[in-house]
């Protein structure tokens, strides 16, 4: 029996824009177990990214419960939330969001720095993660010296670095061509096989189907939550 790593209960979220109050999430509930590969898909504006931000404790819901590793997020203060972000969550962004002034190694070591790890420990761990994404020779380069695909892999390595319980991946292939996109997805699958829990937000149904489970959102509600997708063992072929 796999451990429950994340539980969301009846989450709502709305945004105020001018006079209008738009409810983006209307009572979302689901849970994720350790080692799962879950994709969240749906049309634009259905609330996928908002949901991911809430799961990444980058945003707070208007109501509902969110527990991560048995911890109730709503009762946490700012420092505790920061600690959870650093220790238990790894985020991968569509636009990579690497820091241009830092080298590749320093970017990967970022969560470890805020955790208070020593410089040696940070370096060692960052090199390990870099090796996992097959970019060990790029350690001293700057992000601007890498291709889009390479930058995204660095971003994934950074998400891995904190030994986080869960990796939240927001449209990782959105800024990549199909070849690089496939390569990134293959990497995510490989990491999942190695035990990393992954939640993927994507527009692309092909990539959504690569996950073991697909949650479909529409108008702020879950319309389906399949525990097995039709292509459970679908693998992407990397050229």
């Amino acid at each position, binding site marked *: 029996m796999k451990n429950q790593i994340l539980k969301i209960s009846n989450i709502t979220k709305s945004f105020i824009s001018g006079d209008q109050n738009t409810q983006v999430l209307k009572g979302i509930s689901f849970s994720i177990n350790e080692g799962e590969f879950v994709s969240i898909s749906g049309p634009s504006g259905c609330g996928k*990214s908002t949901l991911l*931000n809430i799961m*990444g404790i*980058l*945003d*707070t819901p208007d109501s509902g419960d969110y527990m991560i590793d048995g911890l109730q997020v709503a009762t946490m203060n*700012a*420092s505790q939330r*920061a*600690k959870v*972000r*650093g*220790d238990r969550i790894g*985020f991968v*962004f*569509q*636009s990579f*969001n*690497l*820091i*241009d*002034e*830092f*080298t590749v190694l*320093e970017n990967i070591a*970022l*969560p470890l720095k*805020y*955790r208070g790890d020593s410089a040696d420990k940070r370096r060692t761990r960052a090199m390990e993660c870099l090796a996992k994404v097959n970019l060990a020779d790029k350690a001293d380069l*700057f992000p601007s010296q890498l291709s889009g695909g390479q930058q995204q892999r660095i971003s994934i390595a*950074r998400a891995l670095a*904190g030994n986080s319980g869960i990796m939240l991946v927001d449209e990782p292939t*959105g*800024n990549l061509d199909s070849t690089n996109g496939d390569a990134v997805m293959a990497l995510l699958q490989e990491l999942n096989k190695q035990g990393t829990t992954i939640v993927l937000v994507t527009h692309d149904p092909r990539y959504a189907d690569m996950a073991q489970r697909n949650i479909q959102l529409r108008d702020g509600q879950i319309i389906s939550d399949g525990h097995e997708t039709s292509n459970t063992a679908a693998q992407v072929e990397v050229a």
Partner: protein
Amino acid sequence: MFIKTALATFKRAKQYYLTTIFTLAITLSLVLSVVSLVDLVFFAPLPYSQSDNLYVLEGGLKTTQSDFSGSTNIHVTNYIRDNNDVFTEFASYNRWTDAKLYDLQQRPQSSVILASDNLFTLMGVEAELGRLFNKTETVGNKQPSVILGYRTWQTHYQGDKEIVGKKIQLNQRRFTVIGVAPDHLVLPYYGNVNDAVWVPLDMDEVWSAEGCARCYSGALKSLVRLKKGVSVDLVAEQMNSLALQGAKLHTPDMLKDYTPTSYLTSVRQVIQGDSGEIVLMLLVGVTLLMAIALINLSSLQLARAMAKIKTVAISFAFGASNKQLVIESLKHNLIVIGIAVGLALLITSLSFSLVEVLASGTISRLDSIGISANTLLFSILLTLGIALLYSYLELKVVNEQNLTASLQSSGKGVGKQMSAGASHWLIGLQVTFSFLVLIAACHVVLYTLSEALRDKGVETKNKWSLVVNYSQIKGEDQRINLHKSVLSQLEKLNTVKDVKAISESKFPDARNSNQVFDNKGNYLGGALRPRVGPGYFSALGLEITGSDFDAYDHELENYPVLINQRLADKISSNPIDVVGNKISFDNKTFYAVKGIVANTYFPGNKSLESIDVYIPAEYRGEREFSFLITATNDDLIEQKIRTLLTKIDSRLDVANLKTLEQQFGNVSQKHLSAAYIAIVLASISLLMVCIGINGIVNYMVQVRRYDLGVKLAMGADNKRLLKDSLVELMQPVVMSLVFAFSLGFMLLGYSKIVPDITLEPNWLMITAIWFGFAFLSLLVSFIPVRQVLAQDPIKALRNE
């Protein structure tokens, strides 16, 4: 790794770092220089022990109409010393005539201080080498001991450690060096005395503070310490009483016309003088400048914060707590500000020699100025304060909404823009402060330059002022003969066209004032009374209304006098009523006014523009006499004059030899320097506000590229966009100029009701600056807008 990251960070924002560091370094160096002055004037300990109980005792002579404060007689002073019951210690000193160090080949001139045997003991200072005066140097001992001032020892004797016991020659007299005074010594009213030599007071009849037994002079001062429990008010009462008693005993003649007084002033007050006010005013000025710089840089900082928000957001997303973000920001800013402050300290320490030159005579103890512990502490606090301010600005824009939004891929950059209100405020503040600083600086420039360049009223080209000291020549007759020889020999020098003699030059060391009354006995003022022969004034190009002296006027018992225009104006506005009228120095003997001499002006020192009465007289054997020499352009004339005098008699001493241009130049130098400083300050202020406005406008138009692109897509042309952007940007500039103008007006109005403040604004200049400022703001706004339009804002719509 840290250096690599630091370099990468620097490369990505070169303009920001260079602008921040150099703007802060220059501004802070001004602030730190003034802080060093503040520290020197207000906080630096005086070089005496127990300086809180140290006072200067001075005398004075009062009449019903005037007050000759500072005048004292040595016998009266000694009487007070011997008959008081309020002082524990009492020592005197007297600035004597400068002497030449004849033992040295160049015969450099040195100031001479006559000091009582207990002066150094009272001050509580120790000798640098050897010993200082003690009982051995008691009055009448005739021990020719001398103490070298520290700088004299260093400069002229190369810090010779074996100097004690050696002999030196001051003018014609040999002295034995008994010691070297400590460095940074300062005497109330005489300032820095490190260049002086010290001789015992009343060593003998020549080296004596007496002058004449019944004379009063301003040179003699005394330092005293009060007994415990004695109040300054009690002392004041006793001093006046003792001064009167002393005068009755020693100078009874003076009591017919004068009432002697005596008073105490604390040493700190005397040494501080007016410099406290001046330094505080400077501090206000540079603080304003620093405020402008910080506002300028704050706008840069805000813009940078907007650009850095993504980095902060990423750190936030990966576990950085608020505390960690603050510490990271603070560390970065401390390094940047620390570099700027370090550079500022370096510039400040290099500028001290310039400060010494500019402020000498206004602020004492400048040779002690340096980066003190207080200044260092201030710089550390300043670094912390500015770093905190910058961190606050940087993190002010951070909130969860901004952070989350900036992590999303978005061409518009939601949440990245500085609000229009904030940017308008920043522009407004900069313009207001800069405008006020500019107005103030321009007025200073106008005043100081117009003062420095004011007409002197005399011809100075190819004119030399020579003062010959005859004090080594014994006997009146011998002195008179030598004087005649000097006069005739000078006239024979081949490049000398004319020589005129006068008892004191236009720039005498001491200005002895004499009372002047009109023919009705009304007091007109205290006048100089130089004795001069005919032709002196025409040699200076000064016109005379009436007649100059005749060759034999000096032989008349009831000789005529010449007066200057200032004195004539006090008698009557009509010169016909003045020439032939009579004046008196004692309301008993009256002298006819033969002519009115045009005024001489002293740009830079109006206190020298006194009323003058000229007496026809030849040299009668005085200690010093002056010559006005008209020569052709000759680089060697100075050497020729010195050689001639030595040839006539080696005992003759050149007390002073300068061109008139040099003498007038020295007086106006401070005003010129002040003008240059004001120009620099105004330029810096203007430059900073231009950089600031340009920076904000640059940022504002860059982040609005998307909006500009939309407008272009909707049919607007570049010209229309340029116009609309400039109109929007100039609004805060114009409003703040109006506000600054009103503020200035209000301050001017306030100054009218405060009697001590006199502000005379030049409205034409203020208006010109107003329009010039507006135009400049328009120009620095135009450039970035034009640049952005040239980059094709439609590209922003395509996320390019």
